[in-house]
């Protein structure tokens, strides 16, 4: 029989409270991970388990017979396995059970517990942890359902909140802006004026989003040529870039010039030549390379390093706000998971209740038929049918109601009552 409680436990350490020098000691690499999963599932106290080990966290999710003992056992296991003494590590461990463990997993998968809120990598890592455990058969009905649910929750959070839609680095914010101006970057070109490291990074980011044409201009032609080569672009003479500006949809400047090198008139000419096709100018240079009045021109969008930093800061704040919406979704989903779990519980109880009634019916009918030896086989059959349908009729409503009630908050009370009234646990 499936126990009436989930008995889920979670023991772990993460980047929030545990320094990296401890986390790295507790990490499980792939080989260790597989051995550990097999070891844990062979423990009689543990029915299912999954180990999640990333650079920011080490967590073991398990279904155990007794939660308090289970938590101690898992903590001991982590320490023993890495040959460390438990005493010095106890302060770093956190442990949760049942609802809290479910909520924690949902938060982790939806990237609410990540160092960078909303980053996408963690979901893949949770998926890997799950498939490794599944391949080794260390999971069962409950953890399978729980992790599948966690993936759905993560997807839902991603789709219904803005938790990961806003870039939180300078170059991702720049790419996002470019996509809000040009939609799809494939047929667009970028020009680098100056070969600063950050400009190169931003250009690479744009290229990864489909930008195909790249121009590079630098005061020293050799540097332009070598960067152009790495970016698969074409180098320009520094004096020529002003005439070629109109070719670029996105311009990134990062020279060390002490004064503005791009003025309003230059962009005015370029935009005229482009028949008003928009230009996105990104000025990462300090001191700035582009005169700020350029932004007054229509179809021209100029962002300097501070503007981009402001966007990043605002995005971070926004992700924090979205995290609150995400928590609402997670709370709802925890309840849904619990509902699923309780229906799981109702089924065996219903089966037992019906079996018990059928046993009683059989005993009583057989007793009666013994004294009615004269009646025909057909009549005997009729008596069986009559009593069977009587039992079914009587149990029909309780069965339906029990299924319904187990969905509610106090479902376990009804289950307990049924088990008690029908003597199912004797």
């Amino acid at each position, binding site marked *: 029989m499936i126990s009436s409680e989930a008995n889920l436990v979670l023991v772990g350490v993460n980047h929030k409270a545990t320094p990296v020098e401890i986390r790295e000691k507790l990490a499980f690499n792939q080989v260790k991970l597989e051995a550990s999963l097999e070891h844990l599932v062979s423990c009689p106290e543990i029915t299912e388990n999954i180990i999640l080990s990333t650079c920011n966290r080490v967590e073991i999710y398990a279904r155990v017979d007794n939660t308090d003992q289970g938590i101690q056992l898992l903590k001991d296991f982590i320490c023993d396995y890495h040959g460390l003494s438990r005493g010095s590590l106890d302060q770093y461990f956190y442990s949760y059970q049942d609802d809290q463990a479910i909520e924690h997993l949902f938060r982790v998968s939806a990237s609410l517990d990540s160092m960078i809120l909303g980053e996408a990598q963690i979901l893949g890592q949770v998926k890997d942890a799950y498939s490794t455990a599944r391949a080794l058969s260390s999971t069962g009905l409950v953890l399978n359902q729980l992790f599948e649910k966690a993936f759905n929750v993560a997807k839902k959070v991603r*789709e*219904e*909140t*803005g938790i990961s*839609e*806003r870039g939180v680095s300078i170059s991702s914010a720049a790419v996002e*802006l470019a*996509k*809000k*101006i*040009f*939609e799809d970057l494939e047929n667009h070109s970028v020009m680098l004026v100056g070969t600063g490291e950050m400009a190169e990074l931003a250009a690479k980011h744009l290229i990864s989003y489909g930008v195909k044409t790249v121009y590079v201009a630098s005061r020293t032609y050799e540097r332009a040529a070598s960067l152009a080569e790495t970016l698969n672009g074409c180098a320009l003479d520094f004096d020529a870039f002003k005439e070629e500006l109109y070719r670029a949809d996105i311009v990134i400047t990062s020279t060390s010039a002490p004064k503005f090198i791009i003025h309003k008139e230059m962009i005015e000419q370029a935009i005229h030549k*482009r*028949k*008003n*096709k*928009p230009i996105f100018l990104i000025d990462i240079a300090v001191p700035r390379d582009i005169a700020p009045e350029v*932004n007054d021109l*229509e*179809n021209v*969008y100029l*962002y300097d390093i501070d*503007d981009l930093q*402001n*966007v990043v800061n*605002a*995005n971070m704040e926004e992700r924090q706000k979205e995290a609150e919406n995400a928590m609402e979704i997670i709370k709802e989903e925890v309840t849904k998971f619990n509902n699923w779990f309780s229906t799981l519980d109702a089924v065996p109880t219903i089966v037992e209740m019906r079996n018990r009634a059928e046993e009683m019916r059989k005993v009583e009918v057989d007793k009666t038929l013994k004294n009615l030896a004269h009646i025909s086989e057909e009549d005997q059959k009729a008596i069986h049918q009559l009593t069977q349908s009587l039992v079914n009729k009587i149990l029909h409503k309780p069965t339906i109601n029990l299924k319904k009630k187990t969905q509610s908050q106090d479902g376990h009370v009804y289950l307990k009552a049924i088990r008690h009234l029908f003597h199912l646990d004797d």
Partner: protein
Amino acid sequence: MDKISFNLSLFSYLMASLGYFVYLAYRRPPVSTFAGWMVGFGLVCQTVTIGIRSSQTGHGPYTTSFEVALFLSWLMVVVYFLTEWKYKIKDLGAFVIPLVFVVMLFSAFLSKETALVPESEVRFWLTMHRTLSIMGYAAFSIAFAAGIMYLIQEHQVKSKKLGMMYFRMPSLEVLDDLNFKVIMIGFPLFTLGFMTGSIWNTQMDLPFFSWDLTRTLPLVATWLIYCMVFFGRMIVGMRGKKAAQGAILGFITVIGTYFLHII
């Protein structure tokens, strides 16, 4: 029967408008799906209304002010669906459907009297004139919505204050392209509507063209605005903010013209 279907579609468009607003503000996919179905249901009911009315009059819904408003709102929904299917801009609904609702609500207060036009050559030119013009207006209404969305998005990118709308609304390029495409379709239809209107005038023994202050002049103004946007784009590369403003101004003139006609 046609009253019931009319009210049902009006109610559906109201619900859909609210649904699209909620979706724009809170991003709940089921709400957007609900709104989409409401628009679909509204369109079916409205089609029934128009069908019943046309079977009563024996011709299309374009003779009275009521019919014109009803037909315009119906075509706006049709064009909206086509656009949504092609561009997948979910939030366009939040800008178009409320407009549809307002046009239809307005029509509810107009006289429902029918004006019968007997089968004749006159009727043919009237049909052409009104149908083509209203098709043009429906396209312009989408350009209007795209224009408003463009201005909101452009303002955010330009002022560097990137709010919720910045993330939810499509890129400037997509909105500009949509604005361009619908005007590309709407302007020739509207022009043909204008011309067939003049032919209809001659059929009614009226002059081909008259400098009527309330009827013709506003139409000429409307035509000139869209003409500027249309050829401005093709010849001098007028785009972005100016094109969006042109589409908005144009549609405001369309509405003004309609009111002048009613008065």
